């Protein structure tokens, strides 16, 4: 899919996200792929906070706020309810943040995958609880400074690595799951399209930088979302029919140091900290290249 194939309609418009917000771009374009028959569920988090400020209601399609933990269970209910009413042509789609997915909503998501409910769950990952002012989530990467993982003399930001949500979800033997980045938009659009055509539970994990929380200029959101893939700290992959596939295998990685130092959340890192990040990247890619289809 390219820009030409997208619906000209705008379904997420007039919202109050910060200028240059990556999450809002993910939501906007996913809905342009899915179309007007999307029934969107948004838990507590930036995208619900910026989309529903009565009477400013920024979704053109049906959309509802769920409890923080309940994205997937509300999707299950909406799908079952519409089916019971005889509807056939619709997509129940959730847009939840990293905190709402990897921490607080993981149980409901796991249950939905277990039942293989016919829903699409999109996690827009900005790597922290942004809407409440940048707290660490399970998807905050090693070394990142947040208000709950500050950097000081002894501790340099987050001491734990990022949870491997894509593989956790895939390990349920889900119908379809994928990773993406808003910096590689066509790849993301293709995956949303593909997910819409598969029956069962679908999960897409899209990196969606937050200029406010990452400490980058608002004009750099898309560039940094490309760079995280190019430097190997994120990867574009799919899981389907019990197999992992790597979609994009960079011949050479761009600099991790350059990627990190552009963001104020990483600026405190020492050379030793950065070595840890590079080593864990290399170990991950060794496994990916050994075990996944390319």
């Amino acid at each position, binding site marked *: 899919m390219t*820009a030409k194939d*997208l619906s000209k309609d705008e379904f997420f418009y007039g919202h109050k996200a910060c200028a240059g917000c990556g999450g809002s771009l993910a939501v906007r374009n996913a809905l342009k792929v899915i179309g007007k028959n999307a029934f969107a569920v948004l838990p507590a988090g930036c995208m619900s906070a910026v989309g529903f400020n009565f009477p*400013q209601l920024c979704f053109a399609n049906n959309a509802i706020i769920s409890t923080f933990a309940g994205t997937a269970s509300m999707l299950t209910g909406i799908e079952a309810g519409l089916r019971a009413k005889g509807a056939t042509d619709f997509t129940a789609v959730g847009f939840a943040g990293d905190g709402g997915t990897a921490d607080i909503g993981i149980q409901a998501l796991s249950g939905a995958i277990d039942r293989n409910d016919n829903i699409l769950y999109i996690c827009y990952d900005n790597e922290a609880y942004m809407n409440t002012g940048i707290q660490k989530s399970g998807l905050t990467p090693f070394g990142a400074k947040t208000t709950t993982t500050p950097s000081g003399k002894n501790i340099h930001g987050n001491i734990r690595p990022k949870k491997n949500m894509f593989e956790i979800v895939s390990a349920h033997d889900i119908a379809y799951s994928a990773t993406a980045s808003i910096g590689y938009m066509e790849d993301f659009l293709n995956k949303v399209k593909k997910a819409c055509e598969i029956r069962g539970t679908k999960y897409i994990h899209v990196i969606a930088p937050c200029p406010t929380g990452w400490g980058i200029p608002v004009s750099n959101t898309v560039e940094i979302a490309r760079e995280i893939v190019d430097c190997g700290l994120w990867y574009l992959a799919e899981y389907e029919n019990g197999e992992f596939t790597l979609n994009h295998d960079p011949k050479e990685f761009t600099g991790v140091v350059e990627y990190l130092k552009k963001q104020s959340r990483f600026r405190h890192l020492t050379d030793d900290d950065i070595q840890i990040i590079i080593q864990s990247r290399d170990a991950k890619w060794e496994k990916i290249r050994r075990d996944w289809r390319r």
Partner: protein
Amino acid sequence: MKPYLREKKNFGFSDIPGSTSFEAGYLVSVNSGWRSIKPVVNMEKCIGCMQCYLYCPDGAISIENKKAVIDYDFCKGCGICQKICKLNAIEMEAER
């Protein structure tokens, strides 16, 4: 189809449905006041490649007659479109 501006009225209880639901795509305020700089499209240089449209987080760009057109009511002036444009057809100018 897209959310659009309506009259901003003072909603009384009688206007609000019994449940916490309301008409979709109901807008009462613009975002133009957020900008300190604004993108301006050079119509000679623009070839309508749609990249700025694809990457605008606010959906404020549409392509009309093969040219990028910006909805200044909802553009926040982030400058992503200016960086994305390979033809340098967008320049950021100071808001005044």
